[in-house]
């Protein structure tokens, strides 16, 4: 059941071309865009033409596309992500400030989603077409048909405005100390995490149910039952582990959507993560930040896909051997 280091290394080496591919897509979009991405400086009438020309030369904006691409890629890899026009600090500092919040909200929402989807999906699959299954099925349809922005507004309406239980603006500068500090933090994280978790849980429940439904029919599950194993052992040891294999793949495919949902959620609740940073950078025409955040999102997607690949091999050792 051990995972070989070579397998992990191989997956890492395979993830790199994907990252390069994404960087090419990103840069192509930027290069195809009409006008100057740094137009604010260069086309500013207050800056004399020769200064502008020098600036263009300094940033190498007149070089061939290939040269510009490799210079941009090298700079990104070295962590030299440029200077934010709007915030007046280095882009990498800005992103590093914001990233932990995003990862915290996204991470806890995924755990919550898993805690909902796994038991509900498996329970529904062991009793297909029962009342529980039908209710769960209807709720999952409702869950992934509800756009995150609408769920977010509804939660605010109910829990912040009607009931006044939870704050609807996420604050990074909570002044209370000690125990209260954590309580306030928890309270303001509940709604963003719930919104993301509900959406994910809905589609995951469907995946888990259909994967588990395929597994429970298999002979080895019947064998396990006829050996006299307890139902809980059969479900947990025989069904769940094998049902998780296709689920991991599907979850990996959903990673881009998860981060898309995070952008919306951060924007609704004003969570100071990189998603809301992206939106405010777009509104402020802050090109270096926009490029960097998009790049970070790409890296995160690749990283979680890699994680899924490794998890996949752990669940199904045949994969690592083939």
């Amino acid at each position: 059941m051990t995972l070989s280091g070579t397998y992990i290394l191989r997956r890492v080496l395979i993830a790199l071309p994907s990252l390069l591919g994404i960087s090419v897509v990103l840069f192509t979009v930027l290069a195809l865009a009409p006008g100057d991405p740094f137009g604010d400086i260069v086309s500013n009438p207050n800056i004399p033409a020769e200064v502008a020309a020098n600036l263009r030369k300094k940033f190498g904006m007149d070089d061939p596309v290939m040269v510009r691409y490799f210079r941009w890629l090298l700079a990104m890899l070295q962590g030299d992500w440029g200077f934010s026009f709007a915030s007046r600090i280095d882009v990498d500092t800005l992103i590093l400030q914001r990233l932990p919040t995003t990862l915290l909200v996204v991470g806890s929402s995924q755990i919550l989603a898993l805690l909902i989807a796994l038991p509900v999906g498996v329970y529904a699959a062991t009793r297909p077409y029962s009342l529980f299954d039908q209710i769960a099925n209807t709720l999952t349809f409702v869950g992934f048909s509800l756009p995150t922005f609408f769920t977010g507004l509804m939660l605010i309406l109910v829990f912040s405005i009607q009931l006044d239980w939870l704050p609807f603006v996420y604050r990074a500068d909570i002044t209370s100390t000690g125990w209260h500090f954590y309580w306030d933090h928890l309270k303001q994280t509940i709604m963003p995490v719930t919104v993301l978790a509900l959406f994910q849980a809905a589609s995951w429940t469907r995946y888990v149910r259909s994967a588990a439904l395929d597994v429970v029919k298999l002979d080895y599950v019947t064998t396990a039952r006829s050996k006299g194993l307890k139902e809980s052992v059969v479900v947990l040891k025989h069904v769940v582990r094998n049902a998780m294999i296709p689920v991991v793949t599907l979850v990996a495919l959903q990673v881009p959507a998860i981060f898309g949902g995070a952008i919306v959620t951060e924007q609704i609740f004003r969570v100071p993560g990189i998603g809301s940073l992206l939106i405010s950078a777009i509104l402020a025409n802050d090109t270096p930040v926009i490029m960097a955040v998009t790049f970070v999102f790409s890296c995160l997607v690749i990283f979680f896909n890699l994680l899924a690949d490794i998890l996949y091999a752990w669940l199904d050792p045949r994969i690592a051997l083939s």
Partner: protein
Amino acid sequence: MTASSNSVRAELVEASSSATDPSTGSEPRPGEGRGRTGESDSAARAKPISLAQDIWRRFKRHRLALVGMVILLIIVIGVIIGPWLWTVPINEIDFGARLKPPSLKHPFGTDDLGQDLLARMLYGGRISMAVGLAAMFIAIVVGTIIGAVAGMSRGFIDTALMWLTDLFLSLPQLPLLLLIIYLFRDSLKKIVGPEVGVFVMVVIVIGGFRWMPVARLVRAQFLSLREKEFVEAARALGASRTRQVVRHILPNALGPVIVAGTIDVAAAIIAESTLSFLGLGFPPDIPTWGRMLFDAKDYLDIAPYWALFPGMLIFLTVLSINYIGDGLRDALDPRRVLG
């Protein structure tokens, strides 16, 4: 990703789509399912059932899909003929009627400028539907072409196209959508005007990020169909490659594509609403459903109906379309036997 693990993955994705699509493996031709429906005895006497009738019969059995279709039809007819019946202009500003809750004069209330919400929602519905259908069309066309080319050609082209598909699947879509809109918005506006420009761009970008599942489905169908006897027969009769694809393979691969296309409409509507909700979609004077939510979100405490109505409409539309897709999946799967 390596070819091996990649193909394992691809198969799993297609197989696992039992959540989304159970149409891999051997596919009998759509018409054939009929023979096994338990009516073969009476088939000689009864009037023959056409393929469309058969699909409709199967679709009807999915009660929620039927309900979804009725609701969607009401919404579609509403947004198409509604603006002729409810002739209040969408941009008539009336500060005397600011933020009025629903009343006889304004059945869905008014916004912060006193504009009638019912009229704006009917107008916005047209845009949402148009964006959904147009983006779906792009996704289907691109996906079918790429999937068909990959499925018909072996070796390098197939590998390269599937690598491209996998790459697109792992792109962070919403950030890229926002980036593209940010970079191209102004120049497109100059060329074709703000409304058409934003519409074209939103449709192309959303459609351009949704073709991958279709391409995978079509490729999987092609891989199995091109080895089938009826295609071999056509080949033996001297049918050209194009004719094999267009006349024999493609029609039999359409079932899952139709299902994927249906769900794409819902996804495109959500994507457009998301962009508008972030304030980066259509300009403020075009009231799409997402844009209305964006405007309403700062007035949740005093005018909750303003957000509730367009939000519920998005939800109902998307839910109906998803259920219709579910019903179509059952109806178009010829292996399913009618009881």
